[in-house]
């Protein structure tokens, strides 16, 4: 297990006041919140910031953390000293000291690191503590990554979920379960599948919660998805764009032939109606034209470009730059 320097994570000296901690956390949280930030490592950074804040904002946890000393360096191999938490209260009661949000795959709240869990215990499900009578199970959320082709054809996925389960001794343990799920044809990125009764079990006869699966697509080397529409880049030779041509276009359902009208400019979008994602309102597939200029390497090729230039004595490629 590696030591985590929570002060370093928030960019603060160990002498920081509680107000400074709050300020630093808020600033970094706004910067790295995965719903807001476009940075590639936003999610992992945000988790670290959140974890650091969970410890440092709480005077008692902070005091216990500080007590381990300031000689540790981030990333250093670490074992907590025996009885390091003697005299502190945060472990007692069994209930989670944190807010709501469950520790499931796909993540809500924050996924505590091993370092955090060793020191402060595992995060519970939130709203823990014993309730009387039948209680409905919580809804469960997870993210499922599929390929574009799965959305065109429908697919089956085996997913593994981790759910917190309270044992007879009142301790919370994570239990794994696997489910085979049918991914319906035509599903779009960002949509959710609801599986009734597949969330957390209820207690004392309460109904089980539902399972919500958020669908995300693996990036595809050729196709880009926007809602139900799919875009593919279609490179053309200059003469194909000028004279028109019939070319093969890849689609997620296989290659189709497309007629490029003569006089097509780069950036022109040719629509293949109904060849986007299927569904009640199927999307369209757009071939976005680009023009590739071949290299002039042989004498004959150079001569061909020179002839082209001669054929267009008045061609003004930069007319729009003239003032």
């Amino acid at each position, binding site marked *: 297990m590696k030591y985590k320097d929570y002060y370093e994570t928030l960019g603060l000296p160990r002498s920081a006041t509680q107000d400074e901690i709050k300020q630093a956390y808020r600033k970094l949280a706004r910067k790295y*919140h995965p719903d*807001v930030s476009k940075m590639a490592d936003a999610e992992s950074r945000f988790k670290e910031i959140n974890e650091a804040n969970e410890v440092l904002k709480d005077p008692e946890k902070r005091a216990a953390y500080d007590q381990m000393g300031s000689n540790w360096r981030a990333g250093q191999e670490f074992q907590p000293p025996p009885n390091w938490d003697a005299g502190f209260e945060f472990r007692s009661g069994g209930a989670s000291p944190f807010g709501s949000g469950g520790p499931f795959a796909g993540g809500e709240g924050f996924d505590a690191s091993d370092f955090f869990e060793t020191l402060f215990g595992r995060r519970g499900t939130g709203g823990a503590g014993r309730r009387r009578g039948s209680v409905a199970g919580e809804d469960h959320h997870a993210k499922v990554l599929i390929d574009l082709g799965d959305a065109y054809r429908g697919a089956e996925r085996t997913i593994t979920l981790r759910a917190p389960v309270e044992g007879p001794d009142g301790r919370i343990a994570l239990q794994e379960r696997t489910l085979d799920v049918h991914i319906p044809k035509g599903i779009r990125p960002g949509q959710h599948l609801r599986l009734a009764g597949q969330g957390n079990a209820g207690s004392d006869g309460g109904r089980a919660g539902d399972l919500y699966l958020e669908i995300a697509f693996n990036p595809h080397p050729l196709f880009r998805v926007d809602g139900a529409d799919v875009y593919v880049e279609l490179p053309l030779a200059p003469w194909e764009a000028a004279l028109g041509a019939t070319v093969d276009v890849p689609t997620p359902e296989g290659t189709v032939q497309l007629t490029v009208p003569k006089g097509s400019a780069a950036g022109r979008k040719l629509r293949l109606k109904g060849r986007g994602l299927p569904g009640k309102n199927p999307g369209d597939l757009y071939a*976005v034209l680009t023009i590739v200029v071949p290299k002039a390497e042989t004498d004959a090729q150079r001569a061909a470009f020179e002839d082209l230039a001669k054929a267009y004595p008045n061609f003004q490629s930069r007319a729009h730059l003239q003032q």
Partner: protein
Amino acid sequence: MNQRTISSALRGSVVEEDVELTTVELCRACQTSEQQIELWVFEGVLQPRGTSRESWRFSGDSLARMRLATRLTRDLELNTPGVALALDLLDRIAELESRLAR
């Protein structure tokens, strides 16, 4: 012989297309309170069908929107109008990015 295997895989419904959520379902799915949902409705963040609180029905899109609002409220300690503004701005960014990519 033509033998068909019937898959035992679970079939769910696509929330955004086939589902309307009640206030209670939305609360459970987003782990939030009915009072908070009411605040979102009065702020215009959610626009349910139906006239009274009991008869409110939320479109499937409300799920993702509400979960996003809940995360922003919790993680950034924003108030309701602040979250409403952030959601509007995120919508605009998404729309501009999608236009830019086309």
